[in-house]
């Protein structure tokens, strides 16, 4: 399982394509496709459904050991006044920490460049 994070517009999807995945293999949802895009939106939907996002995503990861998760970093701004926005940022962060712990590899994409934060041996 891999995790790819990065701020909006930094080239995460292009990086996933460079790994050999096609657009058809990517979508935003916890399905059986190889690449799970927009994890931040999935977390928001889970919160709205009253589900625990960390558990839901970790369960999905456990049954999809070769999945690639792509998540937009949303936690590096001023803490929002809106309560749901605060909970969402917090949940996205916790989900990424939990996935990163389990992942064989974690990359952060910035300006189209990928920085390896965790490798296969880590």
């Amino acid at each position, binding site marked *: 399982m891999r*995790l790819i*994070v990065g*701020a909006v517009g930094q080239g995460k999807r292009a990086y996933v394509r460079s790994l050999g995945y096609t657009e058809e293999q990517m979508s935003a949802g916890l399905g059986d496709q190889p690449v799970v895009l927009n994890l931040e939106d999935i977390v928001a939907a889970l919160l709205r459904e009253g589900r625990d996002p960390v558990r839901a995503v970790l369960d999905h990861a456990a049954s999809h050991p070769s999945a690639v998760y792509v998540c937009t*970093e*949303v*936690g*590096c*701004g*001023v*803490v929002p006044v809106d*309560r749901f926005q*605060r909970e969402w*940022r*917090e*949940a*996205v*962060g*916790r989900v*990424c*920490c939990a*996935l*990163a*712990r389990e992942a064989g590899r*974690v990359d*952060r994409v910035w300006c189209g460049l990928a*920085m390896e*934060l*965790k490798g296969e041996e880590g």
Partner: protein
Amino acid sequence: MVSGGAASGKSELAEGIAVGLGGRLVYLATMEVWDQEDRRRVERHRKLRAGKGFETVERPRDLAGAEVPAGSTVLLECLSNLTANECFGPDGFDGAEGRILEGVDRVRARTSHLVIVTNELFSDGLAYPEETGRYLSVLAGLNRALAGRADRVVEVVCGLPVVWKGEGL
């Protein structure tokens, strides 16, 4: 100095660094509890620290007056709260940066090790109310000043360290 965004895993990583440095462990808490959400946050942090051997000293402002045991290893969490408490507290914005830096220097002089947790608040737009913008500017100035003084600066992303200064973890 340890920095990172919301829920990036920076607290856990900083605690690990402090525990690794060893000695008498002091958690210098800066957060003031106002509501249920704050209480939950403090509770989460207490659970995270439980069993790691930290004693807690609360100091929401006036860091220079904090009574930390001489020679201890201090984990100050977090600078963004302390800065907000100073800026929006009775002493206000004027001189806030200097007061906090002086406080850090005093604490540092008494301790064996000082680990400071700060926050990445700077990558999400610029159009904020004037006071928020002023606060961001004070915190950013402190982050720069403290990163300059620190032996080691680590950014935390998804719980993983990105080392900006000093040796790796």
